[in-house]
C-alpha cells in the first residue's frame, strides 16, 4: 500500500452517528420496549459478608404484578466463566448467590414483574435471613493469617500458575541496589472509581418464535457476552443472538456479562421479553468499579540519575470476585516498570479479594494506577538526586531496541519526542542536549 496522499484518513469527517445523537433518533437499549415485557429487579445483599440462611418470597408474591422469582437453583451453570474463555481460571463468581454473599449489593434473587414499580416493590418485600460473617476490606489485611477467607480454595489471592502473584524477574535487583548511590522508596494508593457512564448497564432478552433468544445489550463485547451467556445457560451457542453496538458510554464498565445471562434465563423461563437495566444506585454501588491499587516502590539510583534497580510490590483490590482483575494485574505487571530503561527489575503483583463490590476493567486497565505511581516516583527520584524532573526522564527514557523487563523489545518508542513537544507547547526551555535526543529511528508521518 504505497504512501500516496490520503483522501479521507486523516480528515475530521463528521461523526456517522452524529445526526442520530443531535436529533434524539439514536436508539439506545433503554429506549426499546416490547409487548408483554417483564421487568427484572435484583434482590441484593445488604451486608459485606454473610451466610444465606433463608430467602422468603411469600410477601413478594402478594405484590400485584409479581410474576416469579429466580434463584441459583434456576441457573443451569451458576458460575461466571468470563476468564476461562480467555484461558484464565478458576471462575468463582456466582450468577446468583448460593450459600454466601461476599459484598454489599451481591445479587441473590431476581424478581420478575409486569411493571418496573411492581418489580421494585416485590424485590423490597423479599425477606432475607443472613448470618453476618467477619469481613475484610484492606488488601494487605486480607493476606494476613487469620483474615476472613473469601474463596473456597482457602486463600484471598488469585493463583498465577502456582504462584501467589504475577511475577516479573529481570536482571538482579539486589545487585542493582548495591550499585546505587540512593535508594528511593514510597507507597502509592489509588481509590475505587465508578465508570459512571451516562447510560446505565442494561439489556432486553426477547424470546423469538424459532426458540432463539435475541438479547439487545449495551455490552462493549457482543460475542464475549454471547459465549459466556450460552455456557451459563447451558444452551447451544446458536440459541443466542446479541444485538447492540450503540453504547451510552462504556469506559470498561460494560464488559462484565452481568445482566445478559439472568435476563436470557428469565426470558426462557417465562417466554416473555425481559428488561433488566441498572438503576443509577445499582451502577454506582453494585456494578463493578475500577479496582483500587496499592503499589510499593523501591528504586536504586546512581548519583548521575540513572535508575539501576526497581523493585515493585503491588496489591490490586479485586473486591469480592475476579471479573477482569486477574488479567488487569498481568497487564499492570507489563507496564509498572514504566517507559524507562532499567537493567534490574523485580515485580510481585497480587490480585487480592476483599468484601467489596468487584473491581474490574476501566479505561486504562491496571496501567492508569501504574502511570500515577511511576510518574510521582520519578519526581521523587529527581528530588533525591537533585535533578530536574524533565532531565531525569530524558536520561532514563527507553529507546527503540531496548529490552523491557517482560522481555519484549521496545518498538515505536517516542517518549522523548512527546516530552520535547510538551516542553515546547508550554514554553519550558529544555537544554540543547535533551532537545537533540531521539527515541530511535522512527520518522514523523
Amino acid at each position, binding site marked *: 500500500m504505497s504512501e500516496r496522499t490520503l483522501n479521507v484518513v486523516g480528515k475530521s469527517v463528521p461523526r456517522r452517528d452524529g445526526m442520530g445523537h443531535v436529533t434524539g433518533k439514536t436508539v439506545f437499549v433503554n429506549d426499546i420496549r416490547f409487548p408483554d415485557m417483564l421487568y427484572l429487579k435484583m434482590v441484593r445483599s445488604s451486608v459485606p459478608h454473610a451466610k444465606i440462611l433463608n430467602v422468603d418470597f411469600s410477601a413478594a408474591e402478594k405484590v*400485584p404484578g409479581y410474576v416469579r422469582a429466580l434463584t441459583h437453583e434456576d441457573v443451569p451453570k451458576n458460575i461466571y466463566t468470563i476468564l476461562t474463555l480467555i484461558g484464565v481460571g478458576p471462575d468463582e463468581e456466582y450468577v446468583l448467590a448460593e450459600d454466601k454473599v461476599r459484598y454489599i449489593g451481591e445479587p441473590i434473587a431476581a424478581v420478575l414483574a409486569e411493571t418496573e*414499580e*411492581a418489580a*421494585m*416493590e416485590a*424485590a*423490597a418485600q423479599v425477606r432475607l435471613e443472613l448470618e453476618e460473617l467477619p469481613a475484610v476490606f484492606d488488601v494487605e489485611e486480607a493476606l494476613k493469617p487469620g483474615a476472613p477467607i473469601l474463596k473456597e480454595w482457602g486463600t484471598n489471592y488469585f493463583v498465577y500458575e502456582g504462584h501467589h502473584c504475577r511475577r516479573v524477574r529481570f536482571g538482579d535487583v539486589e545487585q542493582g541496589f548495591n550499585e546505587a548511590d540512593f535508594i528511593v522508596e514510597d507507597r502509592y494508593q489509588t481509590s475505587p472509581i465508578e465508570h459512571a457512564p451516562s447510560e446505565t448497564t442494561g439489556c432486553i432478552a426477547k424470546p423469538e418464535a424459532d426458540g432463539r433468544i435475541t438479547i439487545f445489550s449495551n455490552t462493549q463485547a457482543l460475542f464475549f457476552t454471547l459465549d459466556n451467556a450460552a455456557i451459563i445457560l447451558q444452551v447451544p451457542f446458536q440459541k443466542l443472538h446479541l444485538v447492540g453496538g450503540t453504547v451510552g458510554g462504556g469506559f470498561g464498565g460494560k464488559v462484565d456479562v452481568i445482566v445478559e445471562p439472568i435476563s436470557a434465563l428469565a426470558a426462557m423461563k417465562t417466554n416473555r421479553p425481559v428488561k433488566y437495566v441498572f*438503576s443509577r*444506585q445499582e451502577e454506582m454501588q453494585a456494578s463493578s468499579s475500577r479496582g483500587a491499587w496499592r503499589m510499593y516502590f523501591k528504586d536504586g539510583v546512581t548519583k548521575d540519575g540513572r535508575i539501576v534497580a526497581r523493585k515493585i510490590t503491588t496489591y490490586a483490590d479485586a473486591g469480592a470476585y475476579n471479573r477482569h482483575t486477574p488479567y488487569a494485574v498481568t497487564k499492570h505487571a507489563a507496564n509498572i516498570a514504566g517507559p524507562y530503561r532499567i537493567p534490574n527489575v523485580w515485580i510481585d503483583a497480587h490480585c487480592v479479594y476483599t468484601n467489596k463490590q468487584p473491581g474490574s476493567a476501566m479505561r486504562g486497565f491496571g496501567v492508569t494506577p501504574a502511570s500515577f505511581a511511576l510518574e510521582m516516583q520519578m519526581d521523587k527520584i529527581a528530588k533525591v538526586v537533585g535533578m530536574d524532573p524533565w532531565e531525569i526522564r530524558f536520561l532514563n527514557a527507553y529507546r527503540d531496541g531496548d529490552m523491557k523487563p517482560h522481555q519484549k523489545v521496545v518498538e515505536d518508542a517516542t517518549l522523548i519526542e512527546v516530552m520535547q513537544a510538551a516542553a515546547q507547547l508550554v514554553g519550558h526551555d529544555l537544554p540543547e542536549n535533551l532537545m537533540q535526543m531521539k527515541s530511535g529511528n522512527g520518522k514523523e508521518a
Partner: protein
Amino acid sequence: MSIQEYFRPQSIEEATRLLADQAQGSLILAGGTLAMPLINDGISMPEMVLGLKDSGLNYIKDQDKYLVIGATATLSQMASQTKISMLSEAALAVGGWAIRNMATVGGNFFAPPPGGDFTAALLALDAEITFVSSQGERTIAVKDFFTGFLTNSMAPGEIIKEVRVPFPEGKTAFTKYGRRHANTPSIVAIAANLGYQSEKVSKARIALNAVGPYPLRAVMTEDYLLGKSLTEQVIQEAGEIAAGECSPFTDAIASEWYRRKMVPVILGRTLEQIGD
C-alpha cells in the same frame, strides 16, 4: 401498595379541607425534587398524595416591612427576585437551573442534611413561617421550626402557607462551600445578617447549614459579635466559637473533621464580605 389517590386542590381552603378529611396522611408534594427521587427508587410508596402546585401558594408580595413568599414559590423565582439579595444568593446555591425551576421555598424546609441552604438564609433573616390547616393559621419564627433530625413543629393537617421575611436593615452575606462551584451538596453554607451602629455590631444573625441535624443559628457566635467591630481578630475568634457550637457529620462529601475545620474559614469569608 402503589398510589391509590392523588388530590389536586385548587385553593388553600380546599387543600386544608381535604387534609382534614379524606386526604389525611397524604404525602404533600410541591416541587417534587425531594419526594420523587424516593418514589422513583421505590423507597417511598405513598398511597395518597396531595399536589400543592395549583393551590394558590405561588406568590411574592411586598407587605411594607415584610416580603411575603408563598410556600410553592420556586427557587428560580427566589433567584431572580431583587428585593432581598441574600434570598437570591441562597437560591442559586441549590441544585441546577432545572431543579430550581421545580424546587419550592416550602419544600426546602424538608431537605435532609446537608440540604437546606435556602432555609438557612430565612433563618438569618429572622423570617417567620405561617402554617395553615382546617383550624386556621399559625405563625412561628423559622428558628423554632426544627425540633430535631428530620422532625419539626408542624401539627397534623397543617401545610406551610408562606414565609414572611423582614427586609434586612443591616448587611447580609451568604457563602456556600461545596466540592464543586455549583450543583453540589454543601460542606458548609453560612448566612450572615449583621446590624451596625457606629462601626459596632448592634444585631447579629448567623445561620449555619450542613453542620448539624438541621440549619441552625450560631447563637453563641452572635452574642460574641454584639458590640464589636469586624476586625480580623474578632472574625477569627467568631470562627472558633461557631466551630464549637455546631455538630458536623460525616457523609460521602466530607468528614466531620473537615466540616468543622471549614466553619471558621467560611464564616471568616462571609463576615469579610460584610466587613468591606
